[in-house]
């Protein structure tokens, strides 16, 4: 097995995402534990903040570059990364468990005959043996998994492996490799952005509304609070099924699994499928007029009251606090 750990970094619109730095920090730490060498690869056209990776513990980065890589192409990115991983005989490949990571990891897996352990929330190699922990049954249980293949692919859940920049870091050593005529068999031809909204899967604060909000016209309260906190709007399946909110906002077993620092559940009962998607949030606040609602079993702080009384007051209080 090779001596290299590769962090594959995701860029969107020419900028490395926060989750890319989490992959860098994780790869750097793993390299220390296993006495291996970590480096980073990024596939893309122009990438503006590539130098920042030095602050997160890796200095060498290879930029697999092509004008055709401005948008994602599963076949093009796969070939570029797999070829490079073969060349340096990478033993571990680390990606963030984002839409791109989930798409790319298994493709690399088949190319490199490497087992994939997806959506890890902990990895431990301090004893020299690599073991990953990942949630199953939407977080109702956790498993410890060991790779058996020579090469190993690991994706890490965003927001869990926190990346803190160090100040004294130097410059990154960027090697640019032009990729000529990439394989664009499968390619993204357009990105339809949902109007400037933050995605629940990436947010550090989520304000979610359920059937207790009574109707779509009342979600402005949820939106306003989310905006104030710089967070995202989430929803229970009941309100998604009713057509009040888009499915992209659904949190739960058949929606998105989230682990923000703060999750505020408003008028959500806390059905087992909802809890499965959010109970690993660091802090949970529940506002529900039924004090027996199961959401209070997982909440750190609760108000057993009416959302139409509590939410406006909460918005005002936070405005007051923000104003100092």
């Amino acid at each position, binding site marked *: 097995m090779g001596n290299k750990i590769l962090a594959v970094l995701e860029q969107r619109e020419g900028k490395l995402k926060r989750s890319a730095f989490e992959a860098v920090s994780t790869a750097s730490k793993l390299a220390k534990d296993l006495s291996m060498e970590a480096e980073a690869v990024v596939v893309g056209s122009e990438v503006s903040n590539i130098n920042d990776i030095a602050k997160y513990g890796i200095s060498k980065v290879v930029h697999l570059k092509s004008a055709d890589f401005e948008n994602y192409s599963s076949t093009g990115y796969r070939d570029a990364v797999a070829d490079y991983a073969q060349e340096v005989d990478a033993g571990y490949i680390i990606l963030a468990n984002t839409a*791109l990571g989930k798409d790319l990891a*298994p493709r690399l897996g088949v190319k490199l005959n490497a087992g994939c352990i*997806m959506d890890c929330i902990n990895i431990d190699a301090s004893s020299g043996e690599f073991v990953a922990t990942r949630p199953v*049954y939407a977080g109702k249980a956790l498993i410890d998994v060991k790779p058996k293949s020579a090469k190993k692919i690991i994706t890490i859940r965003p927001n869990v492996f926190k990346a803190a920049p160090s100040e004294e870091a130097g410059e990154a050593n960027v090697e640019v490799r032009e990729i000529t005529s990439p394989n664009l*068999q499968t390619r993204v031809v357009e990105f339809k952005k949902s109007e400037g909204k933050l995605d629940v899967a990436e947010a550090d604060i989520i304000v979610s509304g359920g059937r207790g909000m009574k109707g779509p016209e009342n979600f402005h309260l949820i939106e306003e609070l989310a905006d104030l906190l710089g967070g995202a709007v989430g929803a229970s399946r009941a309100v998604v099924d009713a057509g009040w909110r888009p*499915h992209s906002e659904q949190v739960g077993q058949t929606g998105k699994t989230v682990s923000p620092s703060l999750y505020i559940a408003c008028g959500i009962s806390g059905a087992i499928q909802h809890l499965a998607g959010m109970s690993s949030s660091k802090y949970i606040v529940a506002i529900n007029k039924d004090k027996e609602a199961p959401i209070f079993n997982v909440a750190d*702080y609760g108000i057993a009251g009416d959302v139409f009384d509590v939410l406006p007051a909460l918005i005002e209080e936070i405005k007051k606090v923000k104003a100092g």
Partner: protein
Amino acid sequence: MKIAVCVSHVPDTATKVKVGSDGKSIDPTGVTYIINPYDEFAVEEALKTKEKLGDDSEVVVISVGGDSSKETIRKALAMGADRGVLLKDDNPRDSFAVAKALSEEIKAQGCELVFCGKQSVDYDNTITGQLVAEMLGYSCIPVVVELTIDGNKIRAEREIEGGREVVETELPAVITAQKGLNEPRYASLKGIMAAKKKTIEEKPAAEAESLTEVLSMKLPPPKQPGRILGTDSSAVPELVRLLREEAKVL
């Protein structure tokens, strides 16, 4: 065209998970199993595609698992799929080994279009469809919410963070279905009766080695029940204080 749909047989989403005596998997006692919710969207899309083609296309449902997986295959047949194949293996397999068995069968059946769910709600791996595609050398678009197939050409919208990607590729291909792709039909009484007469071919799943190994399963540490701070807006200042000073999240 021959269309394959891969379906997995999973615990009902309302299941309270208990760890089994092997310490590595769930205790199945009292657990109800269902067709993986995302696979219903996959079955529906396969049926819609066949109906649109309006020719002698066939929808084959394939599952890797034990005998009980036949219930899930039967459910897809009741929705309208033509026939089923159970690739039998009573032992657990990782996604690689499942994908290996599926891809061998898809090749043998000569299916050019394959539908999977975007995720199995048991192990939540989210990769089986992509693995099958890569093993077969097919194109693959995962997490699809809108699909158009025109001759050989495929155009799909898939959900990613903050929006949708519009992806183009060609057949042969694997599509993994996300909620929103369609509204799965209910199996009619007639469908359920007809499904009883449809064949489910049974054969051993192709030998394949798992590339990962589960060492142990545990339940997440229980959350300490929290504090109810009050019953109306008068509790709000205290809530904000705690979020700032105790939780330090604001």
